[in-house]
């Protein structure tokens, strides 16, 4: 029973029958465990929402939500009057994310096209590995690179008063989200059937024409998903933007202004608040806002991806 049926000759190193018997007996237990673990992902997502919401809930009674979203006065520790308006923080998150995407989307998709369509197999393999390693560099290290390497360059080259600003954060976030854009984008391009390419080449199209006129239209939802996942990563990024954007709660006027993002606010302030106070609960409320934003972005990306899968099955 315990012999692997696909192996024609019995392997002498196979286990003795006692242990397999015990393992077989454990089947009902193991199956239950497997099922529970399988469902755990749902449980955890719900739990995240529940526990973060639970901490934020009491503040909803005495906080004007309209003011919360539209006021740009973030003065959580003011002695005169505490004010919790996250507009400036939202603007900070959006400006840094937008700049990052402005850099990362063309570069990332271009690199995805190169890896998928132009590079020789060897170059392709090594580029993919390098990009994967890029994705592994921790965000605190990116933040450190922003502070220690990029900031002095920006300060001296562009003559800004401070090197940590939207530009710095945007570049760092772009570098962080490019790997995900490249790898998802490359998957999307690879998912286009080879017959499309062959047909186009047979009609006399050059490689560039194949990319621009055949692959982009065919893979557009996958490429969109790649961009969305990059956006999701950029919005949710914490340590890098905390260290590289200057962390000042003001609505930015130019890309050389320092900003404070939603994520960085939580990271910087939660350690210093009185547990159970309004400020504490507002930070959890910001967490809910972040959770909802990234949930929507990721859900959209998933629907877009499912869209292509449905189409190719037809």
């Amino acid at each position, binding site marked *: *029973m315990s012999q*692997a*049926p*696909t192996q024609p000759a019995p392997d002498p190193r196979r286990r003795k029958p006692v242990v*397999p018997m015990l*393992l*077989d007996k454990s*089947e009902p237990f193991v*199956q239950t465990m*497997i*099922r529970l*673990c*399988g469902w*755990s*992902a*749902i449980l*955890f*997502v719900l*739990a*995240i929402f529940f*526990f*973060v919401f639970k*901490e934020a809930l009491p503040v909803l009674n005495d906080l004007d939500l309209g003011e919360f979203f539209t006021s740009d006065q973030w003065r959580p520790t003011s002695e005169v009057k505490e004010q919790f308006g996250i507009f400036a923080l939202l603007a900070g998150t959006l400006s840094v994310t937008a700049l990052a995407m402005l850099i990362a989307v063309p*570069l990332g998709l271009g*690199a995805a*096209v*190169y890896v998928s369509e*132009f590079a020789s197999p060897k170059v392709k393999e090594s580029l993919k590995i390098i*990009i994967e390693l*890029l994705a*592994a*560099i*921790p*965000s*605190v*290290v990116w933040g*450190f*690179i922003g*502070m*220690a*390497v990029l900031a002095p360059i920006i300060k001296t080259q562009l003559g800004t008063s401070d090197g940590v600003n939207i530009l710095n954060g945007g570049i760092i976030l772009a*570098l962080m989200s*490019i790997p995900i854009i490249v790898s998802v984008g490359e998957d999307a391009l690879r998912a286009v059937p080879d017959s499309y390419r062959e047909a186009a080449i047979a009609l006399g199209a050059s490689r*560039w024409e194949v990319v621009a006129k055949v692959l982009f239209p065919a893979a557009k939802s996958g490429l969109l998903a790649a961009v969305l996942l990059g956006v999701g*990563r950029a919005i*949710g*990024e*914490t*340590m890098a933007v905390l260290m590289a954007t200057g962390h000042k709660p003001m609505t930015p006027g130019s890309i050389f202004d320092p900003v404070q993002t939603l994520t960085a606010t*939580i*990271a910087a302030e*939660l*350690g210093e608040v009185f547990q159970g106070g309004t400020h504490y609960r507002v*930070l959890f409320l910001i967490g809910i806002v*972040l*959770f909802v934003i*990234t*949930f929507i972005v*990721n859900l959209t990306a*998933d629907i877009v991806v499912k869209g292509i899968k449905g189409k190719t099955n037809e």
Partner: protein
Amino acid sequence: MSEIHSDSLEYYISPGCSGSSSGSADQPYTSLSEAFEKLPEKLVELNDGNTGRKIELVCIASPGVQTKPPKKAKHRFYVDTKAGGVDGQGTELAPWADLVTGFKHLKDQTDQGRLDLKPGQKIRVTMREVFTSTDQESLRSGRELIARVSFGIMAWSLVVPIFAILGYLVYKAAPSLNLDFLLTNPKDGMTAGGIWTPLLGTFMLVLISLAIAAPIGILAGVYLNEYAGDNWFTRVINLAVINLAGVPSIVHGLFGVGAFVLFMKMGVSLLAASCTIAVMTLPVIITSTKEALAAVPMAFREACWNLGATRWQTIRTIVLPNSIAGILTGVILQVARAAGETAPILFTGVTYYVIVSDDWSDKLTAFGLNDSFMALSNHLFKLASNVKGVPDSILYGTAVVLIALVLVVNSISVLFRLYLRSRKKW
């Protein structure tokens, strides 16, 4: 006749001038018509064996004026002695069969007033080779080259600066990169000494979170690939996995505070931080386990079921042994991710500084499950943003060790995958 050996032969016309005309710049032809009449005599010997030449007729304002001939020809005609037909049009696709016919056609057209040349313009007649690319083709291959190069630049522009930055970090860190740096505790308000305590904290965090996340993640992967049917519930689970991966790390941190630190009363501790990291990295393990299992051919399972094995027996004896390496790849990736995260542990367990004596028995058991601990990622954050007077070498050294740790772990996973692919049996 040295000009015969150059690729293009240039002749000149200057409408309205007088005097003897030989086609040179000093003695240009006086009209197009004359040029087309006289040129064939000069060029007739070129018909054979002189393919690839270009004959250019440049119009200048007056004899002897040395102007730079224009780069682009106003009119282009083609002659192909091998492929041209009697009904050639002089175009690329239907070239004339020889120069004489070509110029006859050209003269006819000029006399009918259809061909005209102003000073500064030129006409080019190309003797086509058999397999030379047409202008259209070379234009396209030029575009292709531009596309290839610019996409290549896009890809490599990601890689090169990163290596430059990493090189710079290592260069700045060089003075402190030695074993002592790894094995001594931070001293003097973290401005001296090494990084032993944060390193130990990171190791413990990784190990404990792995112990929690690996079993749950692997079993969840098994469920999704082996048990779950193709229905709405499975889709919801998959969606949950994707979203779990997409939740911002700081929100995981908030969840850790709410669920583990406060609700389960673990306090700010190594255990609470490990649980938070475990939840956060779960999707990595689930996804890669699922993929590894899906790579095992269905026929393996069917063969096993046909012999009467139950689902669990099949998984245990066939599916898992054939996919264990792929599963491990995911586990290793989880380790790399856990080692680098900062935001989730900021409020769940990590602390600024823990006093540990230099005694090795203390140094090895610095953190208990219920103690707050130091971690390398948070250490770097604090050194970079809060502590004044940290020597560069310690600051950069910490960053380099953290990067190296993560990259080494990741490279192991990559090597593992390459090795696997090389010995794949099916």
